[in-house]
């Protein structure tokens, strides 16, 4: 590993309360959940953080619990736990699908939904699911708890409204109506970073969210209202192609992302169309 550990420190709070107090006192603390993102940065020597706070032992943050209409998923719920959870399987099957395509089993055993949100990569595989589901990020600091809809959570590339003294403690998913649909297009069949990742719900107004086609995960409101207002799928694809802003990078091209996003939209529409 390329990072000097002797100069780094790990704070290990016993409770969520202690964790929040530590963050209040030192907002430079970098949280570690499962470690699957933080440790890549440490291994490559690209993570400047010097002080870390270990969230992993905080059991209350793992809880997956339906609370009436709302499904609360603890930030520390691993992708494996999410895939096994009966509550998630019945209420948010598109999240189960997404979780199963994040890396191999080793990554699924340690990667967490909170980490995926906090990491804020536009390619994060759970993010389109949460965006399409209109989920709410629960943030907590030593002094308060607040709820921010995911649609307002990100402010730019890997930037969010989360303050340095706040932790993501849970993600709350409202009751969903309509068929759920998810597709990830990676650089290969497994263990791949998304080139495009899309989640969609066929509700009265469809909700469609796409990753890796802009600096953050995005909803596509113009496309959604076109479809809701009875536009043909061809027209909707045209709207979509204008609405997203994909780029060229080492994994793919803007042109590919644009064309395939349109293809996925068609596929979503056709797949979810025949339902009664």
């Amino acid at each position, binding site marked *: 590993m*390329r990072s*000097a*550990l*002797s100069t780094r420190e790990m704070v290990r709070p016993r409770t969520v309360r202690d964790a929040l107090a530590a963050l209040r006192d030192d907002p430079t603390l970098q949280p570690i959940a499962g470690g699957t993102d933080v440790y890549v940065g440490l291994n*490559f*020597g690209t993570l400047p953080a010097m002080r870390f706070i270990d969230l992993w032992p905080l059991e209350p943050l793992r809880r997956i619990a339906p609370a009436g209409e709302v499904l609360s998923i603890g930030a520390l719920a691993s992708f494996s736990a999410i895939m096994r959870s009966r509550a998630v399987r019945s209420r948010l099957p598109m999240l189960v699908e997404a979780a199963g395509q994040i890396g*191999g089993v080793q990554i699924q055993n340690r990667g967490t939904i909170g980490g995926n949100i906090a990491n804020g990569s536009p390619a994060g595989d759970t993010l389109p699911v949460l965006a399409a589901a209109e989920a709410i990020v629960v943030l907590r600091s030593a002094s308060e708890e607040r709820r921010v809809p995911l649609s307002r959570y990100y402010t730019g590339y890997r930037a969010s409204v989360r303050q340095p003294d706040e932790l993501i403690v849970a993600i709350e998913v409202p009751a969903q109506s309509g068929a759920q649909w998810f*597709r990830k*297009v990676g*650089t*290969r*069949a*497994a*263990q*791949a*970073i998304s080139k495009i990742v899309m989640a969609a719900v066929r509700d009265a107004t469809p909700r469609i969210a796409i990753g890796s086609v802009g600096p953050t995960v995005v909803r596509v409101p113009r496309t959604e209202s076109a479809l809701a207002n009875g536009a043909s799928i061809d027209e909707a694809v045209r709207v979509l192609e204008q609405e997203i802003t994909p780029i060229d990078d*080492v*994994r*793919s*091209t803007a*042109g*590919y992302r644009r*064309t*395939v996003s349109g*293809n*996925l939209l*068609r*596929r979503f529409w056709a797949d979810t169309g025949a339902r009664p």
Partner: protein
Amino acid sequence: MGKATGKALYADDLTFPGMLHGRTIRATIPRGRITGVRLDFDAAGFTVVDHRDIPDGGRNIVSLIVDDQPCLVEREVRHVAEPVLLLAHESREALLAARVHLEYEEQPPVFDPLASDAVLKELLIEKGDLARGFERADLVVEGTYRTGHQEHVYIETNGVVAVPERDGVALYGSIQCPFYVDRALRVMLGGSRHVRVVQTETGGGFGGKEEYPSMLACHAALLALKSQRPVKIIYDRVEDMLATTKRHPSVIRHRTGLTKDGRITAMDVDVVIDGGAYVTLSPVVLSRGGIHAAGPYRCANTRIRGRAMFTNTPPNGAFRGFGAPQTQFAMEVHMERIAEQLGMDPVQLRMKNALRPGDTTATGQTLAGDCSAQRVLREAVKRSGYRRKKARAGTSGRGFGVALFYHGSGFTGSGELKLASRAAVEVTATGVRLLVSSTEIGQGTRTMHAQIVADAVGVPYEQVEVAPVDTSIVPDSGPTVASRTCMVVGRILERCAREVRETLGDLTPQQYFAAHGPLRVEKQHEPPGWLTWDEERYRGDAYATYAWGCNVAEIEIQPDTYEIRPIRVTAVADIGKAIHPALATGQVEGGTAQGIGFATIEQVVMRNGAMANAQLTNYTIPTTLDTPVIDVVLLENPFPEGPFGAKGLGELPIDGPAPAIVNAVRSLGIDLREVPATPEVVMLAAHSRAAVEQHHDLLTYGAALSGVSPGTS
């Protein structure tokens, strides 16, 4: 069992008392001169080495074919990641924290091999009368084909440990060719210092540890000698991908004349490979690629021109197949296009033109009974259900593609003669011991050689011991490359073992040892008496024999994403004799998987002369979910001068999958002529030839290539 128990010791598993860790400081520009080196760390505990630390009497050279590559940069930088300075320290943390600033005067780099005016090597193979051949043609088909780099991704990265020993060093490492390293160390150090090279258990090579370890060994040795401490240098994955060799990318043009019933009358092939900044093994890659460029087909009038060009990129080098996967990719996709233009069945076209015993190759070599081109083709078609499945393809949406190929066994031409490889068999108190410098790198060398010796001496396999690969103990059997380990080295062992058998008479080895003491039989390779090769004109017997292969690929294209999904690859291989069928099957399966990666998902992205996606996250090799069913059939058409009839095996399997897959895509109506055929490429290929070529060239070379107008080829 050591591999399954975790007890096998790879380079990074070794520790020595007082060991230091080493690190390489590298240039960050593709071309220019170093004008300043500034060390920005507390020097306490550090060993620092630059080119001035090469001993007097030694040479700042990593010796290979042409001694042009410096061990450490003096002034001139010719590629990104060129090594400039070496550091060693007891603490890995201190080592990695040390900062070194390099200042440069930059010069404009050359990345386009077609625009480069620096020719590394040229090649010309001529047979018959090309002009006359074209006159006889009813139809001429032309085409340009491209292959990108490929990165080895051996799961164990490059690494060595150098230990001061006597007045020199012992060098332990992940190495395919210990005597290459031995020689490189002697040349660099000069004088008559003690040098001993020991191969550690090696976690994959595929050619990537053929020549590169010599550079690494020289670096570790310099640090070890200066500090008088053992020094371990292990590359992490990023450094390994960035700095070490890759498969040569190629641009290959074909022009073929045929009669209207599909008989080839003339072949004109032009091969360009990008060698990177130094010669390394490019002349030999060009050589093998050129010799295989006309494929396993009969043609009376052939011209093959080749050139390897210098560019300001990290030198490309050996990778399983060594030029033949590139040139046979082009040949086989070109054959498919010919079949399309003629409206002829692709199998029929190949069957008609395939080499038969008695035919001559492009270099004028007459093939004997061990030529199996038609046989492997027939078997692959039968085994894969090609005809039946292709007939249903309209409804199934599946694509089917065929590739027919061959691979010369051993070093080209007089190469084996010059290598003068040696092997030995000894009688010991407990049985028999074999001594070779061939390395076990996963292909089962130890098992296969022990099998040969056991069978030839007439003792149980368990009584055969394999000597450790230590250059102070074993004779130089030549490098573990070129599909020669069984056929060439195994044959020498077979001859030694047969002589041991004769000497033993009725005695067991143990009885003989008790009565007479030790016995050692050492022999040298004897090239077949009939083999003649003209190195100047590239005419004659290029290889003692060839292995023959045929792949049939069954694929689907995902309609939304343009991803190629291989469903099944049938791989038929004639290898003369399967000494150990399970090991041989493993070679075919593994080589086929690498060929599938080469065809579909392995993309090296070059930016400003360096690999921009040098991480396993971004350079993706096939996982269990990317590989299809790989169905292997081994055929045995013996080569009389191979051990028990064996031909070379290791590289053949990687020559076929890429064209088979691309041909399967073509069968679905998409005009594809390049690999890697990523989904981005397949998407573009459905619409615009020019766009595909531009995309490929941009990723492979950083810009459009000159001299080939996109879309006109």
